[in-house]
């Protein structure tokens, strides 16, 4: 009851000084708005990355070459490719948990001539299982089969970007393209997977049987970049990882004391790595935005201090007619809290609106979650308490006799 009345007193004082209140709140409004927008951008990027990793396929395990160890000096990840076609075949033959296994042989870029012009795209050499592992359908034609691979047939499947650049709207299935002077037949077109978070076009490449790639394009710039495999159930993933590790250590002839020269990771671990980056980015953005919230808090403290001086006489009157020091303290504290919470609420409106605007005009993925909103409200209330306390205590400590005499 008493608190409610004091809130009313604070509310009246805020309404009586509309302009000053608005200017005071502006710092908090901008601070909270900025934090929400920044976090929304960060979260948006994060959820996009996560979606892409889910897009890679289900129950997938990725083997990548690790750092080679030359005489005890680490050469860094991927510094020396120790993955071979044989490794992939060994896993395929020996593993119990792996359902499908495909090596991924990739060259840098190849010149592709066909249709209406020419285009540069990277080549991927895989086995037919690749389609299953990555859950990647064709929009037209078909994926190659085991026979194509065995015979190293000169067949190729194009990504959407390549199709658009060479054939426009036409269906290229059955057409002939020349890849680095080797004529090949287009047998299919892959579904579009769009861009990755870091802006890589996932459709700008061509796929061919790994044997074809080895026979026709194997050179200095060709290596096994990954071995992909999937398991039957999610529960098998850690078992498959252990198993693959054992198989590869044996295949690479690693002694007991030697570290792995490859890495076996599942999707979760991949997304954790990616999330780590965006989390750092989100935290950084939020930290920068928090500074404006801090500045807003200092603004409140400044105004409250001015207000206490300006209202010394009022404080004197209130004390003379029976207000305790704690009543005066509460009044000023509530005033600053109400101001900062009100500012926080307007800041949330600004943040949510701003995020939506950025999402629609800039095409950025933004995600405002309730957690951020709750934290923003709590934080602005905390700002009100923290920065309102000193001026409020100053008011409460006034001597009523002096305060009444104050001109």
């Amino acid at each position, binding site marked *: 009851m008493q608190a409610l*009345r004091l809130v009313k007193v604070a509310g009246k004082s805020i309404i009586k000084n509309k302009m000053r209140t608005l200017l005071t709140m502006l710092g908090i409004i901008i601070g909270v708005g900025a934090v929400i927008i920044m976090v929304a951008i960060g979260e948006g990027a994060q959820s996009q990355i996560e979606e892409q990793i889910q897009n890679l396929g289900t129950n997938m395990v990725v083997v990548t070459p690790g750092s080679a160890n030359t005489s005890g000096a680490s050469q860094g990840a991927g510094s020396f490719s120790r993955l071979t076609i044989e490794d992939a075949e060994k896993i395929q033959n020996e593993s119990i948990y792996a359902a499908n296994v495909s090596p991924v042989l990739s060259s840098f870029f190849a010149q592709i001539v066909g249709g209406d012009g020419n285009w540069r795209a990277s080549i991927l050499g895989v086995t037919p299982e690749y389609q299953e592992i990555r859950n990647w359908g064709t929009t037209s034609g078909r994926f190659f089969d085991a026979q194509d691979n065995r015979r190293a047939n000169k067949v190729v499947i194009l990504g959407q970007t390549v199709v658009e650049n060479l054939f426009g709207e036409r269906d290229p299935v059955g057409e002939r393209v020349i890849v680095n002077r080797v004529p090949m037949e287009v047998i299919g077109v892959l579904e579009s997977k769009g861009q990755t978070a870091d802006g890589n076009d996932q459709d700008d490449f061509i796929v061919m049987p790994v044997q074809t790639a080895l026979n026709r394009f194997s050179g200095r710039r060709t290596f096994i970049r990954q071995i992909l495999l999937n398991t039957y159930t999610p529960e098998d993933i850690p078992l498959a990882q252990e198993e693959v590790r054992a198989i590869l250590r044996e295949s690479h002839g690693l002694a007991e004391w030697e570290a792995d020269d490859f890495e076996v990771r599942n999707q979760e671990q991949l997304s954790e790595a990616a999330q780590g980056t965006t989390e750092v980015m989100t935290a950084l953005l939020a930290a920068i935005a928090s500074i404006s919230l801090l500045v807003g808090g200092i603004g409140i403290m400044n105004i409250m201090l001015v207000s206490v001086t300006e209202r010394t006489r009022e404080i*004197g009157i209130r004390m*003379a*007619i*029976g207000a*305790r*020091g704690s*009543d005066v303290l509460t009044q000023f504290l509530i005033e600053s809290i109400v101001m900062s919470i009100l500012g926080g609420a307007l800041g949330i409106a600004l943040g949510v609106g701003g995020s939506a605007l950025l999402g629609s005009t800039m095409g950025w993925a933004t995600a405002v979650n309730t957690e951020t909103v709750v934290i923003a409200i709590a934080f602005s209330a905390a700002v009100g308490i923290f920065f309102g306390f000193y001026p409020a205590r100053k008011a409460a400590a006034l001597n009523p*006799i002096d305060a009444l005499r104050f001109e």
Partner: protein
Amino acid sequence: MSEKKEVIRVRDIRKTYQMGKTKVHALQGVDFSVMEGELVAIMGASGSGKSTLMNIIGGLDYPSAGSYFLDGIEVNKLSKNELADVRNQKIGFVFQGFNLLARTTALENTELPLLYDRSKRVKKHSEAAKKALERVGLGNRIDHLPNELSGGQQQRVAIARALVTNPSLVLADEPTGNLDSKTTVEVMALFQELNDEGVTILLVTHEDEVARYAKRIVELRDGKIIRDIEQTPDSAAKDLEELLARRAQNQEIEEPEAAEAD
């Protein structure tokens, strides 16, 4: 009738201030009592210690020595918070500069002490405030802001604010210091009227003009009481009537156009 209650009992009150290196003895042993229903004027030149005495009686300050009972409560032994409650429940303040809250209506100003009343004696704040304003003759001005009221009316709001808690004592510090002579008489007439209704009033003033309306005069000099006399007060209401009659006459003769605006 039973014997009248003692509202104030001050015994050998002393107050010493440290001003730099010198000690200032503002009060040097003051003894006096105020009974229920009295209208007392405390007089004295500036520096006589009357403000210090008023601050102690008003519960705004502690004496350095001596004891002070208000309504039987030994005020000088109370904590700061208890003192605030005594100020709230037992004392009604009227100040020289009115000291109303700006941009706050007469009603809200009058309600203010009830906001801090922890005894919760009064349930309906605005009704009590309205009654107090009616008592001082401002029942038709409850929604006016202080800057929409004349000086006399503002002081009436302040008196209403002092009355709203039904205090044992109304303490008025130079209540007419900022008022012209006509308004002074008006306010004094109000104090006399309230006193007739049984309100105990203590006025602090340096003007004989004001003191002559009190039933008793206590005069201070150099921190001591030098005079404590009972007197038959002049009637402020009668003086006001005469004053108005005289003015009306003068106006008729000199400036028949200029009507007094209050």
